[in-house]
C-alpha cells in the first residue's frame, strides 16, 4: 500500500474554477518525486490537500489508509509542507525558536524538543545559527530554516513547493545537498517545481500536471521529452545532468 493515496481528487473554488479534476496519484515510502507543471496547473492546490489544509470537493486523500480530511492533525504530524514563501512560514524570533515551533505544538517535552531542534539544524547545515534572527539570514538560509522547522517535527513525507524560487546557485546547491541527505536517510520527498534543470537528476519519479489533471507519471527518463508539450521547459542534455548540486 502506498504511503499517500489520492483517488478521484477534485477541487473546485467557490467561483466555479476547477483547480483539480479527478486526480489519482500514489506516493510510496522512500520515494523522491518531482511534480512539474506550468503555472496554474494545480500543483500547489494538490500540495494543500496532502496535510488537510484544503478539503476535497470530491474524491479522497489517504495517509497510510486513513482519510486526511477526517484527521488533518495526524496528517500534519506526518506530512511536512515547505511553502514557496519562506518568510510566511518563519514565526520564531530566533532560528532555534523557529525550529522549535512545530515540536512545541506536538507538546513534546523540552529535552526532546532540544534534541530535535539540534538534529534539524544539523541536517540543514544551520548549526551555529541558533541565536540568529531569521530575517538576517540569506534567502538560501531562510529556505533551509523552513526545512529545519518541518524536519524538527520528524515527518515521514517532506513536500516542498517551488523551493528554488529566488535562490542563487549556492542557495540551491546547499538545499539540494540537504534534500539528498534526507532522501538517503529514508525521508519521502515530493518536490513541486517547473524548474527541472536544478533537481530532476535526483528524482526517482516525475509526475506532470496540466489544467488540474495528471498528464504523465513515470521515470524522469521516460517523460523528459514530453514536458515541453505541457508548458515546462525541457533542459538540454540527459536527465543525469539536470542538477545544480555542487561537484
Amino acid at each position, binding site marked *: 500500500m502506498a504511503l499517500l493515496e489520492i483517488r478521484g481528487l477534485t477541487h473546485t473554488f467557490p467561483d466555479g474554477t476547477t483547480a483539480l479534476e479527478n486526480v489519482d496519484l500514489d506516493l510510496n515510502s522512500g520515494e523522491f518525486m518531482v511534480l512539474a507543471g506550468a503555472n496554474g496547473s494545480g500543483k500547489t492546490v494538490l500540495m*494543500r490537500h496532502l*496535510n488537510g*489544509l484544503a478539503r476535497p470537493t470530491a474524491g479522497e486523500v489517504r495517509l497510510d489508509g486513513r482519510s486526511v480530511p477526517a484527521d*488533518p*492533525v495526524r496528517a*500534519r*504530524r506526518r506530512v*511536512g*509542507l515547505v*511553502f514557496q*514563501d519562506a*518568510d*510566511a*512560514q518563519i*514565526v*520564531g*524570533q*530566533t532560528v532555534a*525558536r523557529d525550529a522549535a*515551533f*512545530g*515540536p*512545541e*505544538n*506536538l*507538546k*513534546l*517535552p*523540552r529535552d526532546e*524538543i532540544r534534541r530535535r531542534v539540534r538534529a534539524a539544524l544539523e541536517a540543514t547545515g544551520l548549526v551555529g545559527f541558533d*541565536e540568529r*534572527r531569521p*530575517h538576517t539570514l540569506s534567502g538560501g538560509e531562510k529556505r533551509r530554516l523552513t526545512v529545519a*522547522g*518541518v524536519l524538527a*517535527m520528524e515527518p515521514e513525507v517532506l513536500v516542498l513547493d517551488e523551493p528554488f524560487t529566488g535562490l542563487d546557485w549556492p542557495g540551491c546547491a546547499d538545499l539540494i545537498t540537504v534534500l539528498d541527505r534526507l532522501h538517503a536517510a529514508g525521508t519521502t520527498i515530493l518536490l513541486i517545481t517547473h524548474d527541472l534543470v536544478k533537481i530532476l537528476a535526483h528524482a526517482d519519479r516525475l509526475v506532470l500536471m496540466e489544467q488540474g489533471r495528471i498528464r504523465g507519471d513515470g521515470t524522469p527518463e521516460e517523460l523528459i521529452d514530453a514536458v515541453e508539450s505541457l508548458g515546462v521547459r525541457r533542459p538540454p542534455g540527459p536527465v543525469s545532468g539536470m542538477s545544480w548540486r555542487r561537484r
Partner: protein
Amino acid sequence: MREAAFLHYRPGRGFWHRHDPRLKLLELAVWSVLALAGGWPVLGTLLAVLLPLHGISGSRVSRMRRPLVFWLAMAGVIIIAAGLTESDPPLTVAGWESPFGRPGLASGLLRSGRLFTVLLAAQLLAATTDPADLAGAVRRITRWGALATALSLTLAFIPRLFDEALIVRDAAFSRGLGQRRSVFRRATALGMPLAEAALRRADLTTEALLSRAYVDDPTPPEMRIGARDILLTAAGLLPPLAVAVLARLAIPG
C-alpha cells in the same frame, strides 16, 4: 526585512532578557498604574528606574526616535487641549494674556509625561521578551491560549507589515505617486494595496501555522522564578511604590 524599533523584541542574553516574563508583566502593570495615577515625584522615580534599565538591557531608547516624534505630537495636542479647557488663571507672557490656563497646561504636561512613561515601560518589556515567552507567560497567568497567541503573533509580525508597507510605497512611488500632492489620493493608492498585502500575508501565515500542527496550548516555555528575579522585581517596584506612598501621605487631609 526592515528592523522594527518600537515594541519589538531584540534577542539578547542580558539579565533583563533572562528575567522571568511573568514578573515582567507584573512590573509593567504596576509601573503603568503608578504612572497613570501618580504625580511628578512618582513619574520622576519611574524614569529613574526605567531609563537605566533600558540602558543596561541594551534595548536602546535611541531606537524610539519615531515613536518619540509621535509622542511629541500627541503631547503637544494634549497640552494645548488641556490648556484651553482649564483656562483660569490664564498664562500671561510679557503682559499678553494667552488663551491657555496655567493649571491646564500643567495637567497636560503631566498627562504627556504619564503617556511617555507607559511607553517606556512597554518598550522595555517588548524589547527584552521573546513574544513566544510572553505568550507562555500570558497562558500561565490567564489560561487564555488564543489571547496569548494573538499577542505573540501581533508582536512578531510588526516588522513584516513594515516590509509590506515599504514594498507597496516603493512600487507606488516608482510609478509616479510622489508627484501627486493629494493626501486622499496617496492614502487610497497606498492603503488599499497594503491592506490586501497584509490580508494575503495573514492567510499564508495561517496556513503555515496550521501545517506545523498549531495548537493553542503548546509545550510551555521553561520558566523558573529565582532569587535574582525577586531581587530585580523588588529593585524595579519598591522605589516608585515607596515614593507613591510617601506622596499620598504628604497630601494634607
